[in-house]
């Protein structure tokens, strides 16, 4: 075999490995989904969704966990969206190129890399203890809001950057103030991109477990929360506690809860990808 043939062989071998590895991810995903659906689908019914958690695995449901997740997400949205979009607008449209701005940017990049459990410790120290909100929905939502803020800020900035400067100039030239221009031209044009970022941030938040454990989410919440100061559980928390129980029935219940959590996560991601494609097409024109 000459050199040329040898090189060709190596090239083809690597290509095959590349294909295998690329499909490996999909294969693992398929195994994961198959095993979980096989184990948990028998639990997916109306009772499972509307029952309280229980010590008996076959009776246990995810009612309070789902409601906790919905409440927590709602509050997180209310807190993080205005702050995240506002900060993004500030950095993109107002901030001058000073050292302080550079510091802000480096800081945001760094925050995005801080492990989520550290945010839990922050929440525990500040919201739970210092402000004395306790292990409440409010503490959880504030903690998650800080956690996803970098994602929303970065998405907002990217979306605003994509708005052609000619549109902003046109608005200024007609006598619009900066805020009028942002409100009437910049935000409507960047809406799709910002929305995509928010949904992706939410899909990240909905699966978070570690920071909520630290902040004090409960493993067992037998009642529906009424106020933001109530204790709470969430779907991932419920999955975690069921996973750590030795009784076999709980693994099945956990699988059922995972199916619900994955549906929520995948739907959110799908919607985000849909908006992203639609928005990119619109910008392309």
């Amino acid at each position, binding site marked *: 075999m000459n050199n040329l043939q040898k090189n060709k062989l190596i090239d083809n071998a690597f290509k095959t490995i590349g294909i295998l590895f690329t499909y490996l991810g999909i294969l693992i995903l398929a195994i994961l989904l198959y095993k979980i659906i096989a184990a948990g689908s028998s639990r997916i019914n109306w009772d499972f969704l509307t029952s309280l958690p229980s010590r008996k695995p076959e009776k246990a449901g995810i009612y309070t966990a789902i409601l906790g997740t919905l409440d927590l997400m709602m509050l997180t949205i209310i807190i993080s969206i205005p702050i995240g979009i506002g900060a993004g607008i500030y950095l993109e449209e107002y901030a001058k190129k000073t050292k302080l701005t550079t510091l802000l940017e480096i800081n945001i990049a760094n925050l995005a890399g801080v492990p989520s459990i550290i945010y839990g410790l922050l929440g525990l120290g500040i919201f739970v203890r210092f402000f004395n909100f306790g292990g409440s929905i409010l503490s959880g939502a504030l903690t998650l809001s800080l956690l996803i803020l970098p994602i929303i800020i970065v998405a907002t900035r990217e979306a605003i950057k994509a708005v*052609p400067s000619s*549109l902003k100039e046109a608005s200024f*030239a007609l006598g619009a*103030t900066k805020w009028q221009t942002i409100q009437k031209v910049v935000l*409507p*044009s960047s809406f799709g991109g910002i929305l995509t970022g928010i949904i992706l941030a939410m899909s990240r938040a909905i699966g978070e477990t570690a920071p909520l454990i630290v902040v004090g989410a409960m493993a067992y919440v037998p009642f529906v929360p009424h106020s933001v100061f109530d204790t709470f559980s969430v779907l991932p928390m419920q999955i975690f506690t069921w996973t750590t129980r030795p009784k076999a029935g709980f693994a099945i219940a956990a699988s059922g809860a995972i199916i619900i959590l994955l549906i929520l996560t995948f739907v959110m991601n799908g919607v985000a990808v849909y908006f992203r494609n639609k928005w990119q097409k619109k910008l392309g024109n």
Partner: protein
Amino acid sequence: MTTTTKNRKIEKIPQENILDNASKISIKEMDIWYGAFHAIKEVSMKINPNTVTAFIGPSGCGKSTFLRLFNRMNDYIESFHFDGKIKIDGKNIYGKKTNIEELRKKVGMVFQKPNPFPKSIFENVAYGLRIQGIKDKKIIAERVENSLKQVALWEEVKNDLKKSALALSGGQQQRLCIARTLAVQPSVILMDEPTSALDPISTASIEDLIFKLKEKYTIIIVTHNMQQASRISDYTAFFYMGNLVEYNKTELIFTKPEKKQTENYISGKFG
């Protein structure tokens, strides 16, 4: 430095002779820098009301920068700074009391590429009115119609006012952008190479329009196209390397230029 001193002498054109009315805009010893780059060098000029003045010169000569001084569009560039005086209607537009938004309502601008908002045709023209806080639907509708009529676009779009402005052709878009500017009722309109992105037919219609608009507005147009400057402008200013080389009645600039540089440029020897 010696060259600058020489150029300063060149710039001294007896403006009194060519300006027959009270001036609408006057600029005195204007210097503009972008960081360390000296973009405009001690330019002085006066511009008459209800005239079309063309700024010509090779790209990078500073003419667009100079134009953007008139409605303070340079303000957003952080490295921009200037030294000199510019008055519109006798008022210093860089004075402490100047309201930039008010200034821009008076001094409208049309850009190189048509830049309609991704909104409906109607909302594009109504934009300037809405940001002024005008809510009366009748007034807005009336002004939109008038503005679109002034740019001869009304007949083409009157049934499609709700359609996206992005669906219009390039020439229509540029006329829409002019209508959008007119709706705010400015007295000066700045045009930064308004036809450079358009086909010849659309260009001709915009040129006709500029000629008509002169009756009501003072127009300053930056152009690369010397034929265009000679067709539509009353006065022409030739810029080169940040200097105002020659400024005179258009017919004189194009038939009997005083400076060699001007002659070289208009005869196509460089640029």
